């Protein structure tokens, strides 16, 4: 079943007085099946963050549409956007984006509290997730008291607790050491294994090799894509790495 359908997406940034125009996305189309784990790779400035922002409904495209389970999210009025994000999307960011004024538990609860759930309901949801992510004994700590890996797991818990259709991850391993990165990626594999759809933007070849599909973006276009298929992790790593080299050494689209 198609979960996400992106069609002819175009984004043009215009400076305030219309002097300069920058085309960040040019005619991007792809679709994501339910239960997929898709990674987007590309250089800085390639347009992948713009794409993620549009998918996250934080930004609107100049033209084209994005359908989530058949609903065009680019047409949702501003007044409903926040609730839409809260109910359908889960976010994991490079720098965790935990609020330092909340304990980890309260950070995880945040989207549920905003949706008006009571404490008992939230607690029921939290327990299995916290146990699974291995953070059940640090829930009462504050972000400044725990390690980066722990913070990121709390952020994943926050993304999962609303039971979202889609998890959007922006460089989730960017601020983690290699061990914490591995843990997080294994976690993503596990969650994905349970049927959770994940979209991840990353620079890291290793991170991308965990995905079932990798989309390469260059100059605002989808440049190439690799399906994992029956490939093992090593082989996938090699393919992604080769493609990236091709991408950065300026090879033209040839496949």
């Amino acid at each position, binding site marked *: 079943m198609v979960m996400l359908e992106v069609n002819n997406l175009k984004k043009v940034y215009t400076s305030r007085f219309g002097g300069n125009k920058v085309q960040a996305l040019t005619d991007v189309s792809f679709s994501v099946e339910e239960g997929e784990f898709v990674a987007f790779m590309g250089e800085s400035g390639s347009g992948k963050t713009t794409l993620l922002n549009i998918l*996250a409904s*934080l930004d609107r495209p100049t033209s084209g549409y994005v359908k989530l389970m058949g609903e065009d999210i680019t047409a949702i009025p*501003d*007044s409903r*956007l*926040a*609730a839409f*994000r*809260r109910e359908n*999307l889960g*976010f994991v*960011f490079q720098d965790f*984006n*935990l*609020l*330092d*004024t*909340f*304990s980890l538990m*309260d950070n995880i*609860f*945040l*989207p549920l*509290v*905003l*949706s*008006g*759930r*009571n*404490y008992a309901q*939230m607690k029921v949801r939290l327990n299995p997730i916290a146990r699974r992510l291995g953070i059940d004994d640090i829930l009462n700590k*504050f*972000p*400044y*008291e725990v390690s980066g890996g722990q913070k990121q797991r709390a952020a994943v818990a*926050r993304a999962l607790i609303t039971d979202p259709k889609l998890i959007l991850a922006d460089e989730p391993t960017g601020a983690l050491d290699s061990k914490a990165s591995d843990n997080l990626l294994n976690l993503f594999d596990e969650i994905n294994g349970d049927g959770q759809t994940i979209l991840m933007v990353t620079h890291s070849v290793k991170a991308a090799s965990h995905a079932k599909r990798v989309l390469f973006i260059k100059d605002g276009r989808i440049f190439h894509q690799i399906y994992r298929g029956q490939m093992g992790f090593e082989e996938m790593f090699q393919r992604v790495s080769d493609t990236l080299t091709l991408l950065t050494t300026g090879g033209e689209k040839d496949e």
Partner: protein
Amino acid sequence: MSKHIFAKMAVQNIKSNRRIFFPYLLTIIGTVAGYYICLALGNDPGIMEMRGNAYVISMMNIGSAVILFFSAIFLIYTNSFVVKRRQKEMGLYSVLGMGKRHIALMLSVETLIIGAVGVAAGIGVGVLFYKLCLLALYKIVDFPVPFGFYVSFEMVSQTVLLFAVIIGFTLLSNLWTVMRFNTIQLMGSQKAGEKEPKASWLLTLIGIAALGGGYYIALNVTTAVEALAFYFAAVFLVIIGTYLLFTTVSIAVMKLLKRNLRFYYKSRNFIALSGMLYRMKRNAVGLANICILSTMVLVMLSGTVSLYVGTEDSIESRCPADITSTVVFKDEKEDMGGIVDTVRLMAAESGARVERTAAYRYIAFAAMYQGEGAFTTDSGNYATNSRGVFNIVVIPYDEAKELLFPELTPPEKGQAYMAWSRETRPTRMTIDFGPGGVMAFELLSMEKNFVVSYFANDLTETCYLVVPDASGLMAAYDAQASRYGDEKSHIRCEVRTELTKKDYETQETCRNYLFENLRDRLNGDGENRFMSLRVDGRESYRREVYTMNGSFLFIGIFLGLIFVMGAALIIYYKQVTEGYDDRERFKIMQQVGLSHKEVKSSVRAQILMVFFLPLLVATMHIAFDFPIMLLLLRLFSITDGLLVAKCTGAVFAVFALLYAAVYSMTAGTYYKIVS
């Protein structure tokens, strides 16, 4: 590196950091101008000529000292804020290869530029506004305005010198910061995680106790003497209480609320409570400062405004006639008629035409109030216990009726009227004279209070007792004489003289003539039958009291403006800091699923709460301060509580408007930073 480049960089830095430098500059200008004006007013040659100038000069001297003190605090505070905000920038310079020496040099040039511009502009503003303030002062103290424009170069140089010292001190502290710093620390200084605020239950209790103690004193003081004695203790307790209220009590309360899961996990309270907890921690001291400054402004202004507005009433009670003379009889058998005739004759001798002269006698002695209308005289020491000590003033009805209480009907034998400053009146009054026996009266009800001018601004509480006739007066005299022996009180006589011409010169000539000669004339040759006496002229008292109350009011408004400026400054910097801190949080909350509007309204509510909390607490302080202020104003013959309440209300309204204006102006900066 050439010197030139530092100057260039310094100017560039000031320009690009104008959002934080501009208010600093304004502070310098404002405080310098304020200090110069106050200092120069205290030394103005025109004011030196003014009658009663001692009040003005001493007020201005106190005022300029206060301004200097607060200027130093404000400037040091502002400077430390500016430096803190720029730590990252300095770290960057250091990374880019500037040595500490270079940074110090650049910083010094900056400070010197800002200081020089600020002081020069401050002096300019001061000189320009000086004349305006002088006009206002003359108007307030009701004195004809002289011509001319006056610049005191001596005061200019004194101002420049003192502010140079203050700014030099901030420069030294900045250099000290530069010498100590560590580049890596500076670069990351704003990112460090913040600990969750902890509430100290002990400090919370101390805070509540201090505040409660201060309020308890304010509510339980019943006499002006006590008010005077305990005022500073109460103020001290309330200041401590205020600091603890903002720093720990607020946090303790929020922690308690947080423990209530049902309350805490409501979408409205959830974000607000956690946000407020940290906001209070970061801003507690600043907010307590704003609160105390606001309270000071409110107390000062409502006191001085009440004093000024109530001046006419106080003149009326203190000087009920054009000339009021009080004579003390050494021999109680003395005849009052002779005194009245002598005063009338002498007033005419001074060149005035007398319209009417009238007099009444009374006796005043100390007694302790025991409650329920019972007084007792005690030869022991009254000074050890001021509470309950009264001046009892016994007045014969038939002598004083026309002058003091024309509306009262005559009391029968055994009946009396009683007037005092307390709320309720007993129905029966007894005075126990010990060996002198007991006097007892049934008290008749009456509407209006009255005042014997001699006691109009006495520290001790006064209880007026109106007995039917002179026999009651004599009985009281004998009774207290047998009680107090050598320390007995004497009968006094208040003589009121109305002249046909009401002008100052006529009255003053008459008053001086009486003051110098009345005693000798009454005593005639040799025998000392009359003791100390007081002669008050209404016009001369009016001028004196307007000069005094006017200079109080002037300095109240002047200092009020300076304090408001200080409070505004703190609010501004707090808004800027909050803005930078909130920018990040704002972003995260939107990503997690709060709409822009929701975030904005939640943050607005918090910011409003944070910045209006000081005003709220200040209002509470003022409410509790009110009774004590009423008592203190009594020392200045202001007895009309309603008038004081009106003045306080008006001052509060103006202040709250000003506060809201300052808030909304600075809130603009906050929203600009956040979005």
